[in-house]
């Protein structure tokens, strides 16, 4: 079975802190994704990566950056957390022409 894990299920941070959310997949997938989910807005794509060190902006990249130094790991970085980044963050991975698999999600609260 494909396994996608995220570093934290719940996280509380202060405004202005630098926040790292990590995602690891164990299926040697090329493509990895970060989404955020908000009530009334659904799931929206922040960034995605189709190879090591390669990244592309999704629909809402502002305030975020990403890092993919190894194929199995895709990190989402909030350079200076703000209260409007309080959300559920979901990571996903996918091989070529395959199903996209999601991690369990991280609920981030920024105070």
């Amino acid at each position: 079975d494909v396994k996608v894990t995220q570093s934290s299920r719940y996280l509380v941070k202060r405004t202005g802190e630098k926040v790292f959310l990590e995602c690891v997949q164990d299926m040697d997938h090329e493509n990895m994704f970060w989404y955020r989910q908000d009530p009334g807005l659904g799931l929206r794509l922040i960034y995605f990566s189709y190879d090591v060190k390669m990244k592309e902006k999704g629909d809402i990249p502002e305030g975020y950056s990403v890092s993919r130094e190894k194929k199995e790991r895709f990190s989402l970085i909030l350079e200076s957390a703000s209260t409007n980044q309080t959300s559920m963050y979901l990571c996903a991975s996918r091989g070529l022409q395959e199903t996209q698999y999601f991690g369990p999600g991280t609920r981030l609260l920024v105070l």
Partner: protein
Amino acid sequence: GIQVEQSPPDLILQEGANSTLRCNFSDSVNNLQWFHQNPWGQLINLFYIPSGTKQNGRLSATTVATERYSLLYISSSQTTDSGVYFCAVEFHGSGNTGKLIFGQGTTLQVKP
């Protein structure tokens, strides 16, 4: 613009009832998936179904790509079926990046 629309937005069923959830999409697709989001927020894959029909136990799905819609059938519903069901589509124009556009979801509540 590119759109994925799901209906109904909310659905309440008595245990044992059957239901059909619909997903309409606005353009040609490479990929269509159905997910169930459980109360803990985990998105669980139900079907990868860009076209045709698939069945898995009490669930089945049909995608008619030429008419740009997909249906998810739940038979003999159980309380554990409760949650939000999402349809997500990768459109042809995305260049096989895997980028999914999600519908707004159908929230299903199954009462005992």
